[in-house]
């Protein structure tokens, strides 16, 4: 079978580009062709930048031809979640309130990718201000899961996940506050990682919940994830919470499957394998863990006793921070402003009433309430205490285990519209990913099988700044599960879905 260029991985394409077997412009045209082919159905992007991408690809090609590529990512087309500030390129954060906002600066992670020579295709769809688990809260339109167009891609980095799965980008960046990279990665059958809090600079990442937000890559496979991570994990003096870490190359830390997991102690929290978990998902997760065991890993049950409080704590802390972070969208300096108003207060009210969607308003209300005089101790302070307990849960488990494993999401991709009217059901979608953000730990979701023809993700959680171990075990999982070329499989499913859609 001859593969299209867009069906290859970053590490494969990197070799082809460096060996001059493929040109950066050819590669871009291949991906662009794919975007034109499927974007109408999938709707991964809020903004596409054909001119910028073509200019960047031409420059990459010039450097490749002259033997001076800037990095192994030279000429690789990628997408950026629309939460990342891009100089001169509209950045909406999925919200009407920023529908006309063009940042005058690049986020540090974006700058790193530009300096590495990547070709930025555009800005991917997301739940408004990264609040949601289905991409249905986008202020513009929902994104569809390319494996089944009637289903959601997950969220909030839904467009970033669907673009990688459907071949509309070789990789993307997303952001993860409570699972927003890992959950859509799981639902779209791609690899998604949330690095340790402080590993990737948040400068230029439009804040949702500052103490939880972290930028992470979504890629076709674990090798690509390691490659991209090598460029974005870096200390940044512009972010006071960015940490200076000594580390080697993540890519070079990858090992053959058996070597990687031999003697590795994997804890499986019993709280993650119980109630609410779809049997199909449970079966695939268990099967993958058995494969790892066969490779020499020691898999044992463990406990994170405070897990059941994580969601509650998260839905106090994240909205509290959001209520403050989103207060700046007041119509005064940039973004949307209501057309009709009587005075300043009226302008604030109408601008925000018209500019924000219902989920964002819900969380601003929750957060404002939690921080109010008289309620602060009962809500915010209490939630911070729970957060400490959750962190301690992980510390205890990591005294005994090297990594924690479990399902990324309790379900496979659900139907569009299925949970929009039931916020609590939607919130439960992140029940296994949220504790990781509360503890500031790294987590990765890697495809481990299919249930009802839809991808299932396995989540690994690691010790702080131990991304290398996570990547090794995820790599081993990928090898052991050998699901085949996911881009090809997804394209097949998408073609079928498109045909059915056309018939229906």
């Amino acid at each position, binding site marked *: 079978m001859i593969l299209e260029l867009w069906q290859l991985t970053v590490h494969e394409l990197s070799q082809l580009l460096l060996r001059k077997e493929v040109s950066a412009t050819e590669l871009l045209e291949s991906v662009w062709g794919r975007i034109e082919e499927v974007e109408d159905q999938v709707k991964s992007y809020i903004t596409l930048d054909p001119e910028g991408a073509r200019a960047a690809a031409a420059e990459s090609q010039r450097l490749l031809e002259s033997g001076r590529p800037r990095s192994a990512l030279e000429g690789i087309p990628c997408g950026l979640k629309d939460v*990342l*500030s891009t100089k001169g390129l509209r*950045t909406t*954060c999925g919200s009407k309130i*920023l529908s006309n*906002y063009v*940042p*005058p*600066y690049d*986020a540090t992670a974006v700058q790193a990718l530009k300096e590495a020579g990547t070709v930025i295709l555009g800005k991917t769809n997301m739940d408004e201000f990264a609040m949601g688990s289905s991409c249905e809260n986008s202020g513009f339109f929902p994104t569809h899961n390319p494996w089944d167009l009637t289903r959601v891609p997950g969220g909030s980095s839904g467009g970033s996940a669907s673009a990688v799965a459907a071949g509309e980008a070789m990789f993307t960046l997303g952001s993860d506050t409570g699972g927003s990279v890992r959950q859509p990665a799981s639902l779209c059958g791609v690899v998604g990682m949330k690095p340790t809090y402080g590993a990737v600079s*948040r*400068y*230029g*990442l*439009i*804040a949702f*919940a*500052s*103490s939880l937000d972290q930028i992470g890559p979504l890629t076709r496979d674990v090798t690509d994830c390691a490659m991209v991570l090598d460029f974005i994990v870096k200390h940044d*003096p*512009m*972010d*006071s*919470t960015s940490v200076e870490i000594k580390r080697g190359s993540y890519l070079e830390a990858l090992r053959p499957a058996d070597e990687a997991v031999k003697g590795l102690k994997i804890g499986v929290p019993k709280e993650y394998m119980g109630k609410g978990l779809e049997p199909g998902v449970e079966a695939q997760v268990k099967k993958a863990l058995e494969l790892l065991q066969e490779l020499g890993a020691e898999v044992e049950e463990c406990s994170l006793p405070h897990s059941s409080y994580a969601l509650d704590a998260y839905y106090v802390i994240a909205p*509290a*921070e959001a*209520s*403050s972070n989103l*207060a*700046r969208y*007041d119509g*005064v*300096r*940039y973004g949307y402003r209501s057309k009709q108003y009587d005075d*300043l207060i009226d302008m*604030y009210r109408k601008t925000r009433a018209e500019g924000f969607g219902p989920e964002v308003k819900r969380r601003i209300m929750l957060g*404002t309430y939690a*921080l*109010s*005089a008289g309620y*602060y101790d009962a809500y*915010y302070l209490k939630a911070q205490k729970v957060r400490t307990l959750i962190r301690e849960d992980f510390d205890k488990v990591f005294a005994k285990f090297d990594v924690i494993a479990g399902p990324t999401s309790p379900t496979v991709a659900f139907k569009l519209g299925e949970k929009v009217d039931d916020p609590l059901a939607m919130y439960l979608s992140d029940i296994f990913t949220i504790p990781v953000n509360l503890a500031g730990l790294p987590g990765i979701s890697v495809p481990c099988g299919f249930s009802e023809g839809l991808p299932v993700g396995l989540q690994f959680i690691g010790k702080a700044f131990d991304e290398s171990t996570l990547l090794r075990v995820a790599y081993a999982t990928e090898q052991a599960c050998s699901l085949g070329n996911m881009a090809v499989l997804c394209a097949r499913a998408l073609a079928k879905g498109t045909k059915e859609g056309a018939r229906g």
Partner: protein
Amino acid sequence: MSGKYEAVIGLEVHVELNTKSKIFCSCPTEFGKEPNTQVCPVCLGLPGVLPVLNEEAVRKAVQAALALNCEITSYAKFDRKNYFYPDLPKAYQISQYDLPLARNGWIELSGGKRIGIRRVHLEEDAGKLVHQGDITSAAFSFADYNRCGVPLIEIVSEPDIRDPEEARDYLTRLKGILQHIGVSDCRMEEGSLRVDANVSVRPVGSREFGTRTELKNIGSFRAVYRGLSYEIERQSKLLDRGEPVIQETRHWDEQNGVTRSLRGKEEAQDYRYFPEPDLVPLQLDPDWVEEIRRTLPELPEARKARFVREYGLPEYDADVLVSSPPIANFYEECVRLFGEPKTVSNWVMGELFRLLNDSGMEPEELKLRPSELVSLLKMTREGVVSGKIAKDVFEQMFRTGEDPESIVKKHNLVQISDKSALEPLVLQVIAENPKVVDDYKSGKKQAFAFLVGQVMKATKGRANPAVVNELLHKRLD
């Protein structure tokens, strides 16, 4: 106040630190630039930006806190103070709430009374709105964010101040201390020092506090004095009539000399403070703090003692001179160039203060250079100009900025000591005043002074009085 009541006053002073760059970004802090030219994504609060703390701002805040006898908090943190206003681009101010940088300091007033300082904390300044017309009726306003992110310290006093004079004394001393250590230029007219006052009254002898009002829009130390006096009077009258004082913010109306209620009803402001997640807690190294303490510049009290010791000045003179660092520096430079500390002190405290006062100028606005005053003092010492003329020359120097030599030359003010030039005038005065001459000869000694005065008058004050004396005595005795 009728004497029945006593005032309880606490002051909140905001001081801009004179760092080169802003507190959370590298924008310059210079005052008076074109609107919105000293800004970047960070201080404009654009989506996605993050603050990075300027170490120099912390250093200056610690210097100030130490000079105010405060304890430095070993674990301080920043918090967000949330409120909507167009001059605040993030809709929250990064400030310090429950763990401020420093606590428990004091300032000693003239009489030795200590006013407690509850806390000193570090925060960012907001921008400035320029309203088209009156604030209540302006059709639109311009926002200038140059000032946004300039580092501020807020110094909160204990409610230890009992009358407007103490308030003025406290502020003068506070300003002197901050200027001496060089952390702020403390220019009220440029907004680098701003004062809000909390004031209440209570029956003398009562231990409980009355209901307080907060005074805002105070533009000068004089306005602090006037505003507080007005407010104390207003509150006392209310109590006399048995009416309650309403807790509210009141605006000082300088023109009409009254305070006005700013809002119809005090809105219960809830700032929803919570720890700033974008900054790490501020844990100051005790060695670093000690280093700052050790290298703190000379404080006003120490300088005063030195003035008494080194220059032999009376306590009073020393106290007045050190109350303003620009004046103290001016004085010391004059003494270095001229000597005669007491002569210089008399000139500074007499003539210079009078002229500053008359012109409404702040000491830091003084353009006169020490070397210019010293030239004038030398001309006086050498008899080139008389003491009286020197004062006129000084006034001209102050107003026009001209140097004393050219003023003296231009207006022909050189003292006349030449006997041959004065002799005819002396003879003329004697001839024109036979009655006075007779009086003098019959023993009325004061008649002599009149004759000297006549000669001085004839020379427009330029005659050397000693020479005139000598010539008159020669003719009359």
